[in-house]
């Protein structure tokens, strides 16, 4: 499945400055694996040593925060947009 991945500013050093790159995979886990093979090292910034999404990273597949969905097993349908965003708050 082909998807687009929005890259936060702090990870754009890996993508040559690109804010959005194309990705591929049936699930979020597959998309992140492919992303890391395209841009070596980026995966370890998003996932911790045990392979879980770092606690200060929010990942969205479409409009949904994947922590509400199936985490790394969330399906990544054709054409969907995936966003990787640092967690911040303070209303």
């Amino acid at each position, binding site marked *: 499945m082909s998807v687009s991945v929005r890259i936060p500013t702090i990870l754009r050093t890996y993508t040559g400055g690109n804010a959005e790159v194309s990705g591929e995979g049936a699930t979020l886990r597959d998309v992140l694996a492919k992303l890391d093979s395209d841009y070596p090292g980026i995966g370890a*910034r998003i996932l911790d040593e045990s392979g879980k999404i770092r*606690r*200060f990273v929010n990942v969205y597949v479409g409009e949904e925060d994947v*922590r509400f969905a199936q985490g790394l097993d969330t399906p990544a349908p054709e054409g969907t947009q995936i966003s990787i965003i*640092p*967690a*911040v*708050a*303070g209303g």
Partner: protein
Amino acid sequence: MSLDFGPATALSCRECGARYPLGPNFACVECFGPLEAAYDFGDVKRSDIESGPASIWRYRSLLPVPADVASKPNMNPGWTPLVKAGNLGRALGLKSLYVKDDSGNPTHSFKDRVVAIAVEAARNFGFHTLSCSSTGNLAGAVTAAAARAGLDACVFIPAGLEQAKIAMARVFGGRLIGIEGTYDEVNRFCSELIGDPMGDKWGFVNVNLRPYYAEGSKTLAYEIAEQLGWRLPEQIVIPIASGSQLTKIDKGFKELIRLGLVDDAPYKVFGAQALGCSPVSAAYKAGHDVVQPVKPDTIAKSLAIGNPADGPYVLDIARRTGGAVEDVTDAEIVAAIKLLASTEGIFAETAGGVTVGVLKKLVETGQLDPEAETVVLNTGDGLKTLDAVAADAQPTAVIRPSLDAFRATV
């Protein structure tokens, strides 16, 4: 560009400790952890603070601001009353209770404290526009501070906010954009806008200026300690939205101890949430050290952050200090607003109903020591959330202007 952040010397990652130069950055490149200001305080004396202005700027030597900050156009928030709440204490069975009443700030919430620090950061970085994602109070604090400082403002709120908060955010000028969605969706939107050319030279107070902004909440800790006669309270009840305020009050207490400004005495930190948005309370009760996000549904809209970024730190602090995190229903929030108003003459917004309601629950469940000195925070003004009490807060009677008619009402 020459930067002047007073005693602040660097940004450091709260997760992994990586250090960065002072800049408009908020997330660690190594691990995405939140960046916070690191300082070289030098020698800070009580007398220097006591001779300062009656605002947060009396603590300027403990904040990431230039020494001449008080002479610049800003809102001069803080130094709000610490009210000895004997009546409320008696009603709840507490021996010594104080209400730190932050409704008296310039735009009637504690947010003026944090925004004032963010304004100095925006000036330092040469930003022309002040922005934020807001649950309401912050939007008004930002647009007011921008007007005073001569900056443009463009703020983002969930479209379904209370009318008073919308009016308060709009009246100061600037652009107010309602987003169809929850606060968490507004927050996500701002995080994406920040990486876009449209957001260039914008200071998002709670995103790219967050390491500075968040430090403003330390002033609540400083003021409470100074107002108690340079002493830490034994117990404190703090509302949780993102968890930033609670985290920074703890940081402030620890700094006062380290600098020798107060004695090193134990204190317990209690967090308060509304049941309709209680991800931190739920994680605390379940024994978890991470927070599962929720979709908020509560009248305490200023606390309605379903994905609280500082939630893990709140859990750490509550457990480290021997406190707890508790939640109350919307009905308990309304009852607590009325209790605080009728015992102490303080009209709190719904967030204040949450803290007072949780205080009551903590006493009733034996989680809080009724003999120990306790401070409860009210962070906003009841006039902004009138709907919460309006149904019951009606005239006792409506009569003709005659003594007989009045006598009949008694």
